[in-house]
């Protein structure tokens, strides 16, 4: 029995293939059911986002299950396997656990540290519980994955600084104005760049959009799109007086906004701060403008540099996150390995044997004048009782093992008898750490087995 991951992501597959293999939300339950009907698969869940399609499964026979899942993807999406097999990855055991933890804590994302993935993986897991395709092992795996994601979020700064040029610009605006709400933005130029920037700012809460362009009609068109206002190119100063944020992206060969003009405008504005973002090449705004008080000027290179620094910071934080993941993988694998039958039976026997010896010693201490023969027969009696008691459960477990149904029984047995796992860490100890998880697992799993 092994945890496996089969899937592809933005690194291994181009968007065309990811699109073909994606599972629409409304059809996931059905797909989960189909995977469950495969003989080689015991538990499964499907994570399908625009950057990845992955199946997490607990397999009875790992190699067989991997092959089955690949064929399932091909059959389900009616796409010949050879067209996408090169993009697929398959992992099992410890590697699979690490993969799930890394995905959940956004270390495997296109933009490392982006927050959406944790919500996506949560809902994918919920769908699988509803469809009854996740069982004891996946429950524990996913709950641990959420725990890892939370640790990464709180113990590192991974998601703290923006890593795209537009979000850096918004972040800077917030460092100047605190909030974008009730702010006015002036767009100079009516091209695609301006449109994109305006979309970003409006989403961030900007109240009013002014547009100024050499061709007035195009300005009016873009202004209309944002329910804003067009300003004639010659009256740019009017716009500068009203705006808090100015974004310029024209193809003008010379400066459109000059030092003298801004200095004058600032007086009219009663020194209200203004934030210029010059994304044009060549530049539209005279660099000297930034020497004026309460004026902030960033050009595209400045924004790019800040973005690059943030990306470097995030990579540093990602290293810390990887060691948290490693830590948790080890813990999880310890628990998971303890689900093997042989060490469990050994541990159970040892526990009984220890109790027997201790109790015998007590008895011998109370009755020191027992004869050697009497002692022998007491030993034999107690041994025999233990063997008789253990006979049925052990036989049952061995039979269950042949049918690949043991994980629930083993986990229960270890919890009931408080058996330590091989690594000396109590397997049930983790149950104490997260009692709710434990209960949930026990509640859901019997349905799964039925």
């Amino acid at each position, binding site marked *: 029995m092994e945890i496996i991951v089969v899937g592809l992501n933005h690194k291994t597959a181009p968007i065309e293939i990811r699109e073909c293999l994606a599972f629409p939300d409304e059809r996931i339950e059905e797909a989960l059911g189909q995977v469950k009907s495969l003989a080689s698969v015991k538990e499964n869940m499907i994570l399908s986002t625009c950057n990845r399609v992955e199946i997490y499964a607990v397999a009875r026979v790992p190699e067989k299950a991997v092959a089955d899942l690949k064929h399932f993807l091909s059959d389900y999406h009616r796409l010949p396997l050879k067209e996408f097999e090169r993009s697929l990855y398959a992992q099992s055991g410890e590697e699979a656990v690490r993969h799930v933890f890394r995905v959940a804590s956004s270390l495997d994302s296109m933009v490392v540290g982006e927050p959406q993935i944790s919500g996506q993986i949560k809902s994918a897991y919920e769908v699988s519980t509803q469809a009854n395709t996740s069982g004891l092992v996946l429950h524990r795996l996913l709950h641990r994955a959420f725990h890892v994601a939370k640790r990464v979020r709180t113990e590192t700064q991974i998601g*703290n600084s923006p890593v795209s040029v537009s979000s850096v610009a918004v972040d800077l605006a917030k460092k100047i104005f605190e909030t974008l709400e009730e702010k006015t933005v002036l767009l100079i130029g009516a091209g695609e760049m301006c449109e994109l920037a305006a979309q970003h700012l409006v989403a961030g809460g900007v109240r009013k959009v002014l547009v100024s362009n050499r061709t007035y009609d195009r300005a009016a068109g873009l202004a209309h799109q944002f329910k804003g206002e067009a300003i004639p190119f010659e009256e740019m100063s009017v716009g500068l007086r009203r705006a808090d944020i100015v974004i310029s992206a024209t193809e003008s060969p010379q400066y459109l906004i000059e030092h003298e003009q801004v200095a004058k405008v600032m007086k009219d504005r009663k020194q209200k*701060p203004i934030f210029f973002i010059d994304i044009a090449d060549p530049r539209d705004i005279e660099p000297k403008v930034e020497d004026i008080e309460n004026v902030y000027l960033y050009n595209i290179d400045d924004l790019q540099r800040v973005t690059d620094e943030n990306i470097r*910071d995030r990579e540093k934080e990602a290293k810390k996150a990887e060691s948290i993941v490693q830590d948790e993988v080890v813990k999880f694998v310890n628990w998971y390995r303890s689900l093997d039958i042989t060490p469990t039976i050994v541990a159970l026997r040892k526990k009984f044997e220890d109790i027997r010896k201790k109790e015998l010693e007590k008895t011998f201490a109370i009755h020191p004048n027992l004869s050697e023969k009497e002692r022998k027969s007491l030993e034999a009696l107690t041994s025999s009782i233990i063997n008789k008691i253990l006979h049925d459960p052990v036989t049952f477990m061995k039979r269950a093992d042949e049918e690949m149904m043991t994980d629930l029984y083993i986990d229960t047995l270890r919890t009931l008898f408080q058996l330590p796992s091989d690594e000396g860490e109590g397997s049930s100890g983790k149950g104490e750490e997260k009692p709710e998880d434990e209960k949930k697992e026990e509640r859901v799993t019997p349905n799964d087995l039925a």
Partner: protein
Amino acid sequence: MNVFFFKLAFLFYFLAALVYLGYIVFFKDSLNRTGTAIVTAGFVSHCLALLTRYVEAGHTPVTNLYESLSFFAWMIVGILLVNQWKYKIRALGAFLAPIALTLMLFALALPKEIVPLAPVLKSFWHPFHVFFAFLGNAIFTVAFCCGVMYLVQENQLKSKKIGAITKRLPSLKVLDDMNYHALKFGFPLLTLGIITGAIWGEYAWGRYWGWDPKETWSLITWLFYAALLHQRLTVGWRGRKAAIMAIVGFLAVLFTFLGVNLLLPGLHTYVNW
């Protein structure tokens, strides 16, 4: 008893200052909360110190330099607590707690015995004068801290060094608003402090104003803040200029409070410290 509580408060402020500085370094919200919890404990202890001293002395304990410093620190911590609940400028703790601690440390070195009240200080108006003046001063201390933060943050943004410091300090808007806010509250309080002081002067020495160094310097401070308020309202002085003014104004406040007592002899010089 009062000295015990005073020392206890000092200890709490010391710990709080460390924790707040830790917050700035490690940028963990839990540290900010811990700092506030500790500073609250210190404030309660400080309240008890003032109360017990009031009972033991039989008059409001603001009659010598030790008592004044302690009172000033108490007001600053009070305002820090108001900030933590209402304005939530998180970086402020790392500034105000060490300032309060420094005042306390200074006070700790001074004689703490309760001495009989000098006749001129036996006045209905004297406690009011001290209360208004110090509350105003404490608010100007906040303006000073925000001014320093503003200059640092503005420098980061202008020089395009966006990183750890930018992240830890509030936005320019918040800092500038706080500067204005402090001016709006601090200036009337300073005015009240001077007026009540003048009335007390009339009772104590038979004149409202006598160009004593303390009086002269508080007038200079008052004129300075009046000018800042005026420029702010009419010409739109804000941001950098206002921040620098808040810093210079605070230096004037400090000189009026301490410099005059220590360097220029006059009626406010406490003979008994």
